[in-house]
């Protein structure tokens, strides 16, 4: 009797697991499918944007080679370096802003604290590109819309509003016991020392989360780059370059290279995510446990 029961429970679990796994497998295929298709397209030897077969008839590396050698119309290597530079700089800057602001709002008590948080909340409801044209004219008034200064303008753009995106990091800092801070204060630490020597080392997951999102934003942004770069082709970022490859004059000859470009720009993000993913999950689930 009891043997039979055990058997049926096992069986039940097996069936459940099978169903769950099949469903997950189907979903995984659906999700991975477009990515797989882009990768396939990037290795496709036949030209053009439309093909009648899913799998390319022949494979080649030329699409990648072309991206880096044919700089006559679209200078991809330069765009890639521009984007990388802008993304790294604004990543460093905005991570610092976010962490510093979050720390202040979490630990310090000052008059403007509540009003500031409310204001940030309300401002956060508006999409950033609403202010796009205004931002452009402010940058122009500062003389940042010509030549190499455009890069600085882009960095400012991407990191400038970072102080408003403190919510998640603040939530994380709130979970670190205040007693740790107090102990440090008694031992004679300044606020800066508490922040840099105690809070930050305890907050690895959220730092990594912040860095990741701060890197992603400029890396994939199109609108601001487009508005600020205008006709300065030497300052274009990858997003603008990829967009241009799909214009009607270029699409036929550049389509496969477009796919190659798309694969290439996803590599840095993919590496970052893969190597940091375990912290990423921790970062969103809270800090000191127990």
């Amino acid at each position, binding site marked *: 009797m009891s043997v039979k029961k055990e058997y049926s429970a096992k069986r039940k679990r097996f069936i459940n697991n099978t169903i769950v796994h099949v469903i997950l497998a189907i979903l995984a295929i659906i999700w991975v499918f477009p990515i797989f298709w882009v990768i396939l397209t990037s290795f496709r030897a*036949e*030209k*053009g*944007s*439309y*093909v*009648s077969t899913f799998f390319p008839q022949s494979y080649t590396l030329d699409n990648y080679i072309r991206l880096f050698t*044919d700089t*006559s*119309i*679209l200078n991809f290597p330069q765009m890639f370096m521009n984007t990388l530079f802008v993304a790294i700089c604004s990543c460093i800057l905005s991570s610092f802003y976010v962490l510093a602001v979050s720390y202040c709002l979490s630990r310090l008590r000052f008059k403007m604290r509540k009003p500031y948080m409310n204001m940030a909340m309300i401002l956060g409801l508006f999409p950033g590109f609403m202010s796009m*044209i205004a931002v*452009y*004219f402010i940058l*122009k008034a500062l003389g940042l*819309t*010509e030549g190499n200064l455009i890069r600085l303008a882009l960095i400012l753009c991407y990191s400038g509003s970072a102080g408003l995106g403190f919510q998640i990091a603040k939530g994380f800092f709130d979970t670190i016991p205040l007693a740790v801070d107090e102990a440090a204060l008694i031992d004679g630490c300044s606020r800066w020392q508490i922040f840099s020597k105690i809070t930050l080392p305890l907050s690895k997951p959220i730092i990594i989360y912040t860095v990741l999102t701060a890197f992603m934003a400029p890396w994939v942004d199109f609108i601001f780059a487009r*508005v600020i770069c*205008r*006709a*300065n*082709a030497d300052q274009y970022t990858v997003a603008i370059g990829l967009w241009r490859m799909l*214009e*009607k*004059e270029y*699409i*036929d*000859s550049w*389509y496969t290279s477009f796919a190659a470009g798309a694969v290439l720009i996803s590599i840095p993000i993919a590496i970052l995510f893969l190597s940091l993913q375990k912290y990423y999950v921790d970062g969103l689930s809270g800090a000191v446990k127990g």
Partner: protein
Amino acid sequence: MKRKIAALAAAILASVAVAGCGIAGDSDGAQREKVRLMVWSPSEDQSKESGEWLQTTCEQFAKEHPEWDITFVYGVADEATAPGSVKQDPEASADVYMFANDGLSAMIDANTVVKFGGKYAEEIRATNSPEIVESLTKDGEIYGVPFTTNTWFMYYDKSVFSEEDVKNLDTMLEKGVVSFPLTNSWYLPAFYIGNGCTLFGDGTQEELGVDFGGENAVEVTNYLIDLVDNPNFRVDADGSGIAGLRDGSISAMFSGSWDANAVKEALGDNMGVAALPTYTLNGEEVQMMAYAGSKAIAVNPNCEYMVPAVELAIYLGSAKAQEDHYVLRNVIPCNTELLAQDNIANDPLVAAQNRTFNETSILQPFVASMNNCWTPVENMGKGIRNKTVTHENAKEQTEAMNEAMNSSGI
């Protein structure tokens, strides 16, 4: 405003006269005026591989005008996006830039383009066909120096169709597979316009609205429904037309000069180019009529050095510059003298584009209400492709399209 522009135009003319005297006066070049001109063009015009047309032409211009010490600043903006970029910040934009004429109304409204008057207007009129000049004219004033026409025509496989066949779409459909971008509202109206539908009267009378309704339009819709059912017809979308030419599953497609190299590669010596065919509607031959426009060079009214800028615009649109453009980049010229030259007149691509422009097209209206015309037509095309538009509801659907084209949708 008008007076200001008139004064500006007068100032241009006056200073041209002064500058003219200047050349004769000081040949030592000691008093050369320092000039900074920002020029925007598509990136191919500036790339080494296609001969740096822009830089070369600008240098030549500088040589021909020793009275100015010109510094050129080049920027990248193609004809379709340049008007928008200039509008964003006219003061920090190119002095001389290129645009497609469908952006003209918006450019005039935003005051980002100067009128060409006096001898410049005469020169433009003298070297171009009246249709092209008209495509850049609003209220009797010319706003740009044209350098090429912009329209679409037909590519076909000579081994499948004879020159007789390509005169009629239905004849072609009996012999081979034809692909048409039915869901693209730049192409689809060709059938409707051919059968007497009109847009804004002659294209400039905005108050007259669009006439894509009525019996003649319903006939066309019915024709298109049958066309989609034809086993030899393919809807060209997302580049399926050119892909079909490559693998041989399609023998004719409709596109513009930008696809010429790809078609040449696909068909080789069998590449045929022709103006738009007719189609047979209720036993009668009806000519398809494409939208046509032009690409031209504009001068920004915020330009500091107006005379050199206007002169440069004229120079970039001159016969010599157009010829170089044609040789280096295959940009089809529109200068009437050039078109008469043997080497250019014998190019089938040039012939097809110009025949389309002159005979089988209407000037694409650039009135502001034209913006309302794109989506309804596209939806009609998609409806026909998806078979939601049928013979039974063709009349209602056509009327609905007409109504939507005549309203702003807000």
